[in-house]
């Protein structure tokens, strides 16, 4: 379990705090989404989880290790892996297999074990057969997957993803999100940092951050139900959520907590079947 207690952080002693009294927990196998507008402190929080940053005050514990304790940093980083936003600054190898071998090599594993981990993590991200590819010839999406595989080769129990889908096309995004879901299903705890509301639906717990604080915490349905609050924070709810919210606001009898297109289609169809569509403000008769 990762426990964050009253965490405060600023980059310089006299600057404004980036994180203010943050409290949170991530259990084994849990999927936690951290969402917030740019500059709210998401990435700074993420970097505290494996001791890349040390709290100004407050504490972060990974299992029973405090990230302030430099002697346990190596162990902490074996338990909590981190995938950064830009794959180009985390791929160190000239070829895919050399890059994936970097972490296990640091753990001083014998060559046969390194090979096993390389193959296994490539299979997990769906890049089997890419071993000999030079890393600079990969597409943006493939580089992300290699960066994820590089962290998987360390066999962590938690992985922190910092905006893993930024700058990717829809197909690339889906590929990454599928890998994250698969990892979580196989028991890996996920901390998914994003500013895209569409990506939090899969998670078990959503932490909404603004200006260095956790403003809102709850299940995706609970958080997405607070459309006004989200809008006030500068976060656009997913289109489906917003559509259902507007329908309800205009007096339609739709239920709360709808997050996926499939659910929305079902709800609207049943509304049409029941012929109970009322014309909200009367401006559009015959909808």
């Amino acid at each position, binding site marked *: 379990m990762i426990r964050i207690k009253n965490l405060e952080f600023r980059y310089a002693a006299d600057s404004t705090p980036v994180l203010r009294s943050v409290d949170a927990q991530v259990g084994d196998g849990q999927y936690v989404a951290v969402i917030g507008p740019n500059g709210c402190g998401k990435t700074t929080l993420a*970097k505290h989880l*494996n001791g*890349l940053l040390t709290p100004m005050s407050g504490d972060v514990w990974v299992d029973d290790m405090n990230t302030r304790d430099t002697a346990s940093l*190596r162990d902490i*980083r*074996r338990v909590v*892996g*981190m995938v*950064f936003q*830009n794959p*180009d*600054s*985390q*791929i*160190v*190898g*000239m*070829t895919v*297999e*050399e890059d994936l*071998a*970097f*972490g*296990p*090599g*640091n*753990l*001083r*594993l*014998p*060559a046969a074990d*390194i*090979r096993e981990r*390389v193959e296994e993590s490539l299979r997990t991200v769906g890049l089997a057969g890419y071993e000999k590819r030079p*890393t*600079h010839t990969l597409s943006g999406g493939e580089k992300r997957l290699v960066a994820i595989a*590089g*962290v998987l080769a*360390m066999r962590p129990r938690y992985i922190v993803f910092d905006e893993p889908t930024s700058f990717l096309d829809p197909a690339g995004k889906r590929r990454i999100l599928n890998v994250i879901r698969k990892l979580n299903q196989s028991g890996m705890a996920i901390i998914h940092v994003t500013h895209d509301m569409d990506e939090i639906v899969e998670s078990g717990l959503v932490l909404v951050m603004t200006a260095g604080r956790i403003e809102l915490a709850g299940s995706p349905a609970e958080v997405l139900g607070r459309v006004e609050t989200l809008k006030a924070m500068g976060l656009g709810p997913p289109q489906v959520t917003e559509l259902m919210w507007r329908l309800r606001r205009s007096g339609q009898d739709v239920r709360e907590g709808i997050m996926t297109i499939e659910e929305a289609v079902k709800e609207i169809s049943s509304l049409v079947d029941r012929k109970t569509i009322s014309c909200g403000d009367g401006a559009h008769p015959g909808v």
Partner: protein
Amino acid sequence: MFHLGQYIPRPSVVHGLDPRVKIFTTLLVSMTILRADPPKAAVLSLFLLVGAWAARLSLRDIGTALRPLVFFFVFLFLLHLFFTDGRPLVPAFPAVTVEGFARGLITTWQFMALVACAALLTMTTTPSELISGIERLLRPLRAVRISSHDFAVMVSMAIRFVPTLLLEFDRLRDAQLSRGADFREGTVPERLKKVSSLAAVLVLQTVQRADDLAQAMDGRGYARGSRTYLKELKMGYADYTVMIFALAFVAVLYVFPF
């Protein structure tokens, strides 16, 4: 990009040899080349040709390594041809001597052979194999507290970032071009100034990237000193054979009075 002796993947015996054997043989043969007289030069040329044949490299492949240096080879030859004292080759041109011609030939051959020899190494060995070979050869330096592992990580990372930095440079230049910058116009100092502003941004970005990279490496458990590798080098039957043959070849070349 530079094509000087870049790796060419081919299914050959030479490609499969242990990089340490290839580095060792290259050094050995290079030293022999530098001390060769004409008969030895002929034998060594034959050796290089056989090497290229065994590596399934054509003369054209070797040529790509030599071509960028053609001007240098011609210059070297002319220098010796005109500036060596001795008997005139043709009575009409006393500056051109028989000795100059001979010395020009052998010196130019020496440089061409050296480049070809190095190309044989780099065309049949990937940069990573080369690095792990050098890393293993440098391991004894541990005795003087120099870590060959750190050296290997440093060099491979430097090579890994060459294409990334080139791409970044292109991106920066395009951004400045689209904002009206022109790197082709103006006097040389003016152009240098423009390019140097580009370089400043590139350096800044690289420093930023180095910071991110260091954090990512930390996150993957990097620590200075000992580490293990995906491929541990192991000398095989063919490796010992080639090494013994190379040693014997050079020994015979010096023992035998031609």
